[in-house]
C-alpha cells in the first residue's frame, strides 16, 4: 500500500496525488448521497461547465506564477466575444457565412491578445504593479463593452456556432476538448519551453533572472499577451454556450480562478505552481458545486462551501507541511 503510494507520488508529485485522492473521496460521498450524481447527465453538465472557468483559470495561472495577477480576464473574454459577435452581425447575423465566422474568431483572438499585450508592456516596461494595470484594463474593457452594447445582450448567431458550446466530438464535449488542448499546451509551455522556465524564474526573483541573461521584460509581456489569448478563447466558448454575449458575463469567475490556482498549490508570491494540480482543483470545485446542487442545496450555499473548503485546504496544507518537516 505505502509502496504504491510512493510510486504514484514520485510519478505525479504529492500535490497532484493529494488532490486526486480528495477528488475521489468527494465523488464517492456524493455518489452515495445522490444516485443521480454519477448519471451521464450530471457528468455531462460538469463537463460543459468546466471549460470556461478552466480556460480563464489558465489565463490567470501564468501571471500569478510571475508574481502578478490579471484581473481583466473575464472582461477580456467578453470583449473578445463581442468582437466575434460584431463580425457575425455585420455579415448577416444568423445567416453569416462560415468565412465570417473564421474572420470573427481571428479578430476575437487578436483583440484578446492585444488587450493582454498592452497590459504586459505597461507592467514590464513601465514597471507598474500588475494589480493596478489589470484593474485599469478591466475597467476600461468593461466601460467600452457596455458603451458598445448599451448594456444589453447581443444574440442571433448562425446555427453552426452552437456545437462549439454544446456539441460532441467522438463522444467528448467540444468545449472540454478545447480546454484539454489548452491545458496541455500550457503544461508543455510551462514545463518544457524557455518562456515557461523564464516565467518561473521571473516570478521567483526578477533581478537575479535578469542578471543571468533572461529577457525579463519580454517574458512578462509575453505572459500577459498569452493570458489575453487564452481569455479570447474562453470568450468564444462563452458566446457559443449562451448563444449571446453580454458584457459582465462570468464576472464572478475572476476570484474563483485565483482561488483555483491557490487550491492547486500555486505560490501566491510567484515562482511555483503547475498546471495539473490546478486542473484537478478546478474539477474538485466544479464537482462540489454540482453535487451540492443535486442534493438540493442552494447555489449560494454551494459558494459558501467553496470558501470553507479553501480555508480547510490551507489548514490541511499547514499541518502537512509541519508533518513533512518533522520527518527530517
Amino acid at each position, binding site marked *: 500500500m505505502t509502496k504504491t503510494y510512493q510510486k504514484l507520488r514520485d510519478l505525479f508529485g504529492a500535490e497532484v496525488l493529494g488532490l486526486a485522492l480528495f477528488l475521489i473521496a468527494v465523488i464517492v460521498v456524493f455518489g452515495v448521497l445522490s444516485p443521480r450524481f454519477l448519471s451521464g447527465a450530471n457528468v455531462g453538465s460538469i463537463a460543459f461547465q468546466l471549460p470556461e472557468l478552466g480556460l480563464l483559470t489558465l489565463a490567470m495561472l501564468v501571471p500569478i506564477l510571475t508574481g502578478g495577477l490579471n484581473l481583466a480576464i473575464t472582461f477580456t473574454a467578453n470583449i473578445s466575444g463581442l468582437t466575434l459577435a460584431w463580425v457575425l452581425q455585420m455579415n448577416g447575423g444568423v445567416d453569416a457565412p462560415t468565412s465570417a465566422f473564421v474572420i470573427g474568431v481571428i479578430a476575437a483572438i487578436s483583440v484578446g491578445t492585444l488587450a493582454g499585450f498592452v497590459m504586459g508592456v505597461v507592467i514590464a516596461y513601465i514597471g507598474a504593479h500588475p494589480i493596478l494595470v489589470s484593474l485599469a484594463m478591466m475597467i476600461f474593457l468593461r466601460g467600452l463593452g457596455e458603451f458598445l452594447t448599451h448594456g444589453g445582450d447581443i444574440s442571433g448567431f448562425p446555427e453552426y456556432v452552437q456545437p462549439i458550446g454544446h456539441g460532441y466530438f467522438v463522444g467528448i464535449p467540444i468545449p472540454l476538448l478545447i480546454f484539454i488542448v489548452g491545458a496541455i499546451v500550457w503544461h508543455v509551455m510551462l514545463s*518544457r519551453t524557455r518562456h515557461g*522556465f523564464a516565467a518561473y*524564474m521571473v516570478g521567483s*526573483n526578477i533581478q*537575479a*533572472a*535578469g542578471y543571468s*541573461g533572461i*529577457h525579463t521584460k519580454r517574458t512578462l509581456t509575453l505572459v500577459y499577451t498569452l493570458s489575453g489569448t487564452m481569455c479570447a478563447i474562453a470568450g468564444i466558448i462563452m458566446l457559443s454556450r449562451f448563444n449571446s454575449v453580454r458584457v459582465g458575463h462570468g464576472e464572478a469567475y475572476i476570484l474563483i480562478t485565483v482561488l483555483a490556482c491557490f487550491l492547486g498549490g500555486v505560490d501566491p508570491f510567484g515562482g511555483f505552481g503547475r498546471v495539473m494540480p490546478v486542473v484537478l482543483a478546478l474539477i474538485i470545485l466544479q464537482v462540489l458545486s454540482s453535487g451540492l446542487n443535486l442534493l438540493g442545496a442552494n447555489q449560494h450555499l454551494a459558494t459558501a462551501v467553496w470558501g470553507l473548503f479553501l480555508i480547510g485546504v490551507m489548514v490541511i496544507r499547514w499541518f502537512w507541511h509541519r508533518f513533512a518537516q518533522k520527518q527530517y
Partner: protein
Amino acid sequence: MNQPLDNPSGQVVPAIRVRHVTKTFGGVTALDDVSFEVLPGEVHCLAGENGCGKSTIIKIITGVYQPDAGAEIEIFGQKLSAITPTISRKLGIDVIWQDLALFPLMSVAENIAFEGMLGNVPRIARHATLRKKAAEVLTRLGVDLDLEAPLHTLSVAERQIVAVGRALVGDARLVFMDEPTASLTQSETEKLLAIVAKLSSEGVAVVFVSHRLAEVLKISSRVTVLRDGRLVGVYDTDGMTQSHLTELMTGHTFDSVVAAQDRSKAPVVLQVKNLTREGEFNNIDLTVRQGEVVGITGLIGAGRTELGHALFGMTKPGSGEIILNGAPVRFRSNRDAINSGVAYVSEDRLTLGLVQPQSIADNIVLPVLDSILDRFGLISSSKKDKTVRSWIDDLAVKIGEPTDPVTTLSGGNQQRIVLAKWLATKPKLLILDAPTVGVDVGARAGIFEIVRKLADQGLAILMISDEIPEAYFNSDRVIHMAGGEFIGEYDPRSTTISEIEGAVFA
C-alpha cells in the same frame, strides 16, 4: 605572543561572565562548555566561522535561549539563575542585529525612542518627549541626524547609528553588534568605529561580531574565538595577525603562498581604453590576458562594482572603449555581454547571483537554456540532467538532490553553483565580484582553487575584492582603485602585502 589569557580582569567586576555554558538542540550540541567574559567599557570581539555558536551565545546572554543545566551566569556582578529577555534588557544588555530591526516608515526620533512608550499600560505617545529623548542620545553620540526624516530615507550607516541610539535610550551598558559593518563603506565604517570608541570611553562595553578580520583586530582589545561550539581561547589583539586569527577560527593552517605568475606573453582577452561613466569611474585602462587573474582592490565605494557592471553590459559607459578578443564591443544589455563570453559573479548572491528559492538544477541551466533544447525546441530533461551533473561533479559541489532548493546549500556551495552556472556559458572573461562574501573562511580556499584551475585552463579573470590578502595571494596582478580611478598596480611577487595595505588604507 597570543597565548590565551587566563584571568586578565582579576579585580574588575566583569560586565558579563558566563561559565560552562552548554546548549544542545535536539541531539546537536551548539555550545559545549563555553566560558565568555566581557569587561565594562571593553570592545570585545566574538570571532568564529558560521555555525560556531556565536549567535547561540548571544541568544543565551540575552535570554532568548536557556542554557542547559550547569551554566553560571553573572551580569554586572549579579549572579543569575535564569535570564529572560526582559531581565537582560533591564540589566542594560542590548543587541543590534544585522538587520537592525528598525521601522522603515517611522521617523528617526520614533525609531530611537519608541521603546520608552511600551509597557503593559497603553500610553499616548508624546511626540515632544520622543524628540527630546532622541535628540539627547544623538548629541551624546556626537551625530547630527534629522529627527523627522523617515528611516527609509537614511543610508545604511545612518540607520546603524539610529540602532545604536535606540540601545542607548534603554541605558545599555553592554551592546552586542552583529556584523555591523557588513554593508558600510570605508568612511562610514570609520565613523561607526569612532562611535564604538566613544561608547567604550563612556564605559559601555561593545561586543563585535564580525567577519572582517582586519576591522576586528583594529577596534577590539580582546577577541574570543569559538570553533564548532567550543571555546578556542581568549586573545589579546595586540600582535595578533589576520592569518593567525584565521587559523584559530578554522583550526587549519592556510599556507598563504603568492600564486602570481607572469602572464604577460599570453594573448589579450579584454582591453579597456579610457572607460568613463560619469560619477562612477574615470579613464580606466585595463588589460586582462588569457589565464591571468587580475585583482582589483580598494575601499568600498571606489567604483569597482560599477566598473564590473559596465563590463557586463548592465550599464552603459559614457565614453571609452571595451575591446574583447580584439574586437570593440558595445553591449546593449547583459545578454549581449553573456553572448560575447563575459560572465559576472555578483557580490550579492542573495538577490542577484542566484534565483534563491528555485532548485539547484534550474539555477545552473538558467543562463544556458539554449544548450539544453531538443530538436523540437523544448527543454530536454536528459540534457538538463547531464549539464547539471557534469558541473556539480566538476566543481565538487556538495548537494543533496539537484531538485533541492539552492537555499539548502552552505555559502561556499552556493557560490560554487554560481560559478557553475556562469562556467556553463563558456565564458572567455569571468568577473568575480567579492567571490568569498558569505563564504566560511575554511571554504574560501576551495573557491580560489577553482579560480586558479580556471585560469590555468585559459580563462581571463577579473577579481574584485575588499579583502586585500585575498587579492594579494590569488591574483597575478593587483590593481588599487580609489575614487573611480586606478591609482596603483602591484605585482605580488615583488610587493609585500603591507605595502598594498598601506596604500589602500592611507
